[in-house]
């Protein structure tokens, strides 16, 4: 396998593959963070997660169009504003959906599967009707494209670095919110025992609504970031949903650390195997591996120790 390459080439292979694996890790983690909050903390199986991401992508598209047409001078920094708007838009939609649909289903968590699946179809058709069935191309500022050549063989992709930085920032922010802030304590209290949390004076409805909105908002930011590496169309969200659930379930639903570990394991396994095998085969083996481990450890990699 390696005989045909020289030593420096081999070195480059490992560096580039390592980097490719890290990018994939960031992408997986970014996709999964929003769901880890919604599914992990609230137990809502949100099949419309991909559609919340695509809303973020569309917001990015429209922001870029606005900047191109009206304030081209500031085009190079529009992406940051677009991510903020994507967060707000997806979060607001999430808040509305929680109020209109999800809150009636907390006692029947499995039904959320069907309800949010329906929601995802409705959202897809809405995007199609309002934004058109064709895919749109999001124009990026010049500085976000291309790569930094390190050596002849090794090149570092700028958008890869960007996604990595973004993922790190959001992960830290979420970890802080969940484990250090007063609000995070309330969320965890509600998750562990809704009735008791209510009894000690936590407004559980409000906590639920903001938690769901936060998860959706993060999905929106992820969708916004993915306009750099993927497509933006009414059904593009479907491309991410399987991987997202894979990461969250494999990691152990209620654990942020689990999500990180699982995104890392899956991405490294897949990226390495893709290099040595063909694309489809790598996917098959990754899925087999995940299924195998989940059979031995149904609760996922990490679990919360809770007295039931």
């Amino acid at each position, binding site marked *: 396998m390696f005989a045909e390459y020289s030593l420096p*080439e081999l070195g480059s292979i490992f560096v580039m593959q390592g980097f*490719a694996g890290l990018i994939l890790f960031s*992408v997986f983690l970014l996709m999964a963070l929003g769901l880890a909050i919604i599914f992990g903390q609230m137990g809502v199986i949100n099949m419309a997660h991909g559609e919340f991401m695509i809303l973020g992508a569309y917001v990015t598209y429209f922001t870029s169009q606005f900047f191109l047409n009206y304030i081209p001078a500031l085009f190079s920094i529009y992406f940051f504003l677009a991510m903020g708007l994507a967060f707000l838009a997806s979060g607001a939609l999430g808040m509305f959906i929680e109020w209109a649909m999800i809150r009636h289903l907390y006692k029947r968590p499995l039904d959320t599967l069907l309800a949010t699946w329906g929601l995802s179809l409705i959202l897809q058709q809405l995007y199609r009707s309002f934004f058109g069935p064709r895919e749109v*191309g999001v124009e990026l500022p010049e500085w976000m*494209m*291309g790569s930094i050549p390190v050596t002849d063989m090794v090149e570092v*992709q700028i958008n890869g670095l960007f996604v990595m930085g973004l993922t790190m920032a959001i992960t830290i922010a979420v970890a802080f919110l969940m484990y250090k802030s007063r609000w995070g304590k309330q969320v965890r209290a509600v998750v562990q025992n809704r009735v008791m949390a209510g009894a000690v004076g936590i407004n559980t409805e409000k906590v639920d609504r903001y938690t769901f909105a936060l998860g959706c908002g993060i999905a929106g930011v992820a969708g916004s970031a993915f306009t750099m590496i993927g497509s933006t169309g*009414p*059904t593009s969200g479907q491309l991410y949903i399987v991987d997202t659930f894979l990461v969250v379930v494999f990691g152990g639903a209620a654990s942020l650390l689990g999500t990180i570990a699982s995104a890392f394991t899956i991405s490294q396994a897949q990226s390495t195997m*893709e290099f040595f095998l063909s694309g489809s085969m790598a996917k098959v083996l990754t899925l087999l591996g995940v299924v195998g481990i989940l059979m031995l450890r149904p609760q996922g990699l990490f679990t919360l120790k809770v007295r039931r």
Partner: protein
Amino acid sequence: MSDDIERGLESSLRRKLLMGMAAIPAVALMPKFALGAGPATSEVNTTGLAVTDTEVTVGILHSVTGTMAISETGSVQAEKLAIEQINAAGGVLGRKIKYIQEDGASDWPTFAEKAKKLLVQDKVAAIMGCWTSASRKAVLPVIEQYNGMLYYPTFYEGLEQSKNVIYTGQEATQQILAGLDWVAKEKAGKSFYLIGSDYIWPRTSMKIARKHIEAHLGGSVSGEEYFPLGHTQFNSVINKIKLRKPDVIYCAVVGGSNVAFYKQLKAAGIDLSKQTLLTISVTEDEIDGIGGENITGAYACMKYFQSLENDNNKEFVAEFKKMWGEKTVIGDVTQAAYLGPWLWKMTVEKAGSFDVDKIAVASTDIEFTKAPEGYVKIHENHHLWSKARVGQVQPDGQFKVVFETADLIEPNPFPEGYQ
């Protein structure tokens, strides 16, 4: 003809809705069209199709909802344009075409069901429709059982032929061989890296490509890879491509993956003006989503590009934009879909009948000189004689045509030595 079509998008849409309900306002708009000019209905329709003295009904069967709506929208638009133009020019055998549109909803059993509805309940004289091979395969038994006529627009993998289908797109050898010959000669391509989505069309196409590269071009295949539909992470394979340094990346990735692939290729620093990439799956429609700046310099092998310089095409592009808006783009399949209604009209008029059996026979050697891609002719195997062209992507998302075969290529859906 063009005098009658000077209407904006909205009014033409509204007119189409009216057409379905009452023919009177539409007829009043067309002074050239004389009622009852054609031969008697009993003569031209002996099998009980939906043909009256003034009207003939056809079906349009594409996905306008679901995943495939992205691709099939263009085909629907082209077919409606062709039907409108044919009606403005006097219709078929003196009868105006009325269409019934059904939605396949990107779901193959739905396609079959809707095809059956069109044939059994609506008795349509022909169906313009399907896009993916899967939908065609689902519809085929229905069309054959109820003896309908299908005009299928997409370039596809070949290995199929039916009395009841006219394939207006290219079969695999028409699209693949000429492009490979060109790239081997012009770009001195010796080693090829084949990459595609994982389903029947890319796999069959790559099989043909590999045979041709190894047996006829004296080249080598340095890698062959398939990715699941919807795959969005290509960094590993891009690293592999960088290492193996193939002369040519030969690509048949489709759908959302397409966008991801080219964006990541660009991000990884592979400059398509230096690295030759030849694709058989990117038309102007796909570039809309990919973004012209991300794929500038790549080559595509198709039979039609929107930028083709000929009078037919200039007129076609102008009419298309007038009907569907200035910003719409026209890809290879959209043009092929436009051919369907016209080829059907000419076949009906040659046969002097709407009967499917007569049309199936009369189709052979039907010539269409006004085709936007240039002259086309139906082969007796129900595929089209057509040229192959190679275009290079420009930053504005249009192609610059850099090569065109001198002659029409004979369709050969069952190529010997390539299976």
